[in-house]
């Protein structure tokens, strides 16, 4: 009965990756500034925050859920950690822990409402999106927190390999992708996440506590949002209460572009990274080409569709 799902070819990251390569090839012919390590390093910096959020989003989408609150939770986390540092003079590690604790707590609330109250994730996270936004505004008084200690922005520093600057934050993001990929692939809890998304009832009947799996996923996603908070603070050097307003759609886009099914149970987290990079490459490449901003939006619309089309075609070819 799940036949539409059944029709989907086994997901790989190959399709999205081909789309990414094609996009890069295109921009390389359009701007001689595009193809440089420094520029790629820049793109990686730019997708660092949304890329990290998208890891958590991938986990949730794999369970056939969706999280609209991710960006706002991220903003809340960055305000909590910066204000804890600024107002109470807490040391960076303590303040960061509190910030991540706050995002994990929000994840827990999402998870409890999804599992215990059995509410649809869309509505739950729509609710917590608003709640997190309001708390962020109230707590920060809508003021950007600029007193940020060095310890909190350390991830925004970079080291050099040859001519290229590489941000520690980017390395962290890449490491998180790798770890999550291994976790999903090689560990029992990771496989249970797929199972829950694939067929919740079958998973329940095999004696796995689907509630525990879901709860774990939402909390874990919250932790990822918290790490994204930290990366965001590191990147812009401040706690920004207005951050995170479009990150939910951006993150979901990265997940879907990366080949993960919104119906759950199918997808690879590395694809999400590729999806996030596709968006970053578009934005960067179009600016380098000097496309004016309204036209950028137009072209982005077309390119997003072309990207999944390429993905689709490359899969057909592979069959």
């Amino acid at each position, binding site marked *: 009965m799940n036949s539409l*799902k059944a029709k989907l070819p086994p997901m790989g990251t190959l399709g999205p990756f081909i789309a990414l390569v094609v996009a890069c090839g295109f921009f390389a012919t359009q701007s001689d500034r595009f193809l440089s390590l420094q520029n790629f390093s820049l793109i990686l910096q730019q997708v660092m925050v949304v890329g990290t959020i998208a890891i958590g989003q991938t986990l949730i989408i794999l369970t056939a859920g969706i999280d609209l609150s991710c960006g706002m939770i991220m903003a809340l986390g960055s305000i909590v950690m910066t204000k804890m540092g600024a107002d109470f003079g807490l040391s960076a590690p303590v303040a960061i822990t509190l910030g991540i604790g706050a995002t994990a707590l929000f994840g827990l609330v999402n998870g409890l409402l999804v599992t215990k109250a059995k509410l649809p994730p869309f509505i739950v996270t729509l609710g917590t999106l608003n709640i997190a936004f309001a708390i962020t505004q109230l707590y920060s008084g809508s003021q950007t927190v600029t007193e940020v200690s060095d310890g909190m922005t350390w991830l925004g520093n970079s080291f050099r390999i040859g001519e290229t600057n590489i941000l520690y934050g980017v390395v962290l993001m890449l490491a998180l992708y790798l770890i999550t990929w291994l976790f999903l692939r090689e560990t029992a809890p990771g*496989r249970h996440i*797929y199972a829950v998304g*694939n*067929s919740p009832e*079958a998973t*329940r009947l*095999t*004696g796995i506590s689907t509630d525990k799996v879901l709860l774990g996923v939402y909390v874990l996603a919250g932790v990822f949002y918290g790490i994204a908070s930290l990366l965001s603070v590191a990147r812009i050097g401040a706690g920004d209460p207005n951050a995170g307003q479009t990150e939910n759609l951006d993150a979901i886009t990265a997940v879907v572009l990366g080949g993960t099914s919104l119906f759950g149970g199918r997808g690879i987290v590395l694809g999400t990274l590729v999806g996030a990079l596709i968006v970053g490459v578009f934005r960067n490449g179009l600016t380098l080409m000097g496309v004016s901003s309204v036209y950028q939006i137009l072209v982005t619309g077309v390119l997003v569709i072309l990207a999944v089309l390429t993905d689709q075609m490359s899969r057909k070819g592979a069959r």
Partner: protein
Amino acid sequence: MSTAPNAQSPLVIQAKGLVKRYGQVTALDGADFELRAGEILAVIGDNGAGKSSLIKCLAGATIPDEGEIYLDGQRAHFKSPIDARRAGIETVYQDLAVAPAMTIAENLFLGREIRRPGFLGSVLQVIDKKKMLAESIARMNDLKVGIRSMTQAVETLSGGQRQCVAVARAAAFAQHVVIMDEPTAALGVKEGNMVLELIRRVRDKGLPVILISHNMPHVFEIADRIHIARLGKRAAVVDPKHISMSDTVAVMTGAKSVDELPAQALAH
């Protein structure tokens, strides 16, 4: 080899007056049930007689509206399949609870993955894919199913192959009781016989088996006792050695009442 079970064998599962309603439909209407140690108990009945509903209650998959369940004489309260599984009850569901996009090996071990030895396995819960694969091949070979690759997604299997996955899983992990809801329905002659063989082997390990089937020859070949379900109740429990197939079917369909049967036909 176990000794043949008889009326003195202790009751492993007992249920009294189970009732389960779905809206206006009453699936179970005060059903009783008894499973003795070491026996193969067949459950037969018309479509919609409430067989699946009955075993779902026993397996914790649904919670009955009324009635009591005893496991080894102790009142059992299964709130979820996890509880039943913890008590060592393994079930093959009629709609084959499998995760379609996952591989055969993964489905066989879902929730009971083999872990790597040492830290990796115990703390990080890393699974041992190689070992799981090898085990899967062994289990599936037992059933003589020609499946080419254990890393195939279950959704790509034929109907019968899929059923074999579910059967193999239950047989492999049962500690206490095995429940099978029409395990041979989609199977070919050869594969069906292999499953019967497997059921016998499980029984010989000392585990009682509940077998739901519409296949009368299979039932009469293998069952120690036959529980006849009818209209959400237990109509009778008969002894296949002392009753004919046609009499059994007559009771099952309501053509004959239990009183018309000779006393020895009834099992105790």
